[in-house]
């Protein structure tokens, strides 16, 4: 294992730059977390407030979708480089997932 790895000791400037970039990224993750908490609060508040189901259901599903995109692209770094194959796998999985849910929900509907 690890036969293709060589150790590259970074210069001080390179190291400081990479460190700062990671710290910036971490601040971005904190902002993402705040947005996720906010979306969750909206979803729970809407249900607790007792709006019409026809209004709530599409909105909370949309909020869940946004939260999952934030989780995948930022917390799981799918927005980073070298995630092309990863995106292909996940989109295929999501496509099959969508068809599965659609099929079973419509079977009981009719």
């Amino acid at each position, binding site marked *: *294992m*690890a*036969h*293709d*790895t060589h*150790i*590259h*000791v*970074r210069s001080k400037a390179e*190291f400081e730059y*990479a*460190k700062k970039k*990671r710290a910036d*990224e*971490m601040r971005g*993750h*904190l902002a993402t*977390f705040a947005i*996720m*908490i906010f979306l*969750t609060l909206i*979803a*729970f508040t809407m*249900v*607790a407030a007792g709006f019409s*189901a026809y209004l*709530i*259901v599409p909105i*909370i*599903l949309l*909020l*869940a979708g946004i*939260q*999952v995109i934030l*989780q*995948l692209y930022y*917390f*799981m770094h799918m927005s980073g480089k*070298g995630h092309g*194959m*990863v995106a292909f*796998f*996940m989109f*295929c*999985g*999501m496509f*099959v*997932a*969508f068809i*599965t*849910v659609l*099929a*079973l*929900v419509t*079977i*009981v509907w009719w």
Partner: protein
Amino acid sequence: MDINQRYTPQSWPEHPETATMEGKNKFIGFWLLLAAETVTFASLFATYLALKDKGPSGMEFSAAGLFELPLVFAMTMILLTSSLTSVYAMYHMKNHNFKAMQAWLGITVLLGATFLGLEIYEFNHYVHLGFGYTNSAFSSAFYTLVGTHGAHVLFGLSWFIALMLRNAKRGLNMYNAPKFYLASLYWHFIDVVWVFIFTVVYLMGVIG
């Protein structure tokens, strides 16, 4: 190259999880697993949606009458926070700060264990009400979906604990960096599934 090669923050690569061939292979294989898990959970969600509030017996229990939001809200916040703490752990992994990473993983494990405890409490509460696994098609579908998620939480916790103990004296190296990274990806995926569980099962269940 020796797998136990020591690194300093200066020599630690920017992406240690994919810096070796083994790391790259693990990374791609693990994402393929997550895509397959997406399909697994979709089939359980689809089954739940098709059988929600269906009998043939045990119809006295419905989603609208059974679920209580305060507990689910607490569980959601705990799991979401544990997702952030594992992000912090990976931030320190990339900084090559082993102790900080272990500490954040420890917090993640504590939060995850709290979540699991609340879920066990919830299931126990339902069973005492008479809403058991074999009560109705609805109950079986509910316990299978939420229980499979709970089993993933348990597996994720065991994985974190095993990694933390096994590597406690090793410190961070190219051999275990991909392992920590994948466990944290798994933990985020558990949170992704929970987002749909609290939305589709609990919130949409309470609406009726």
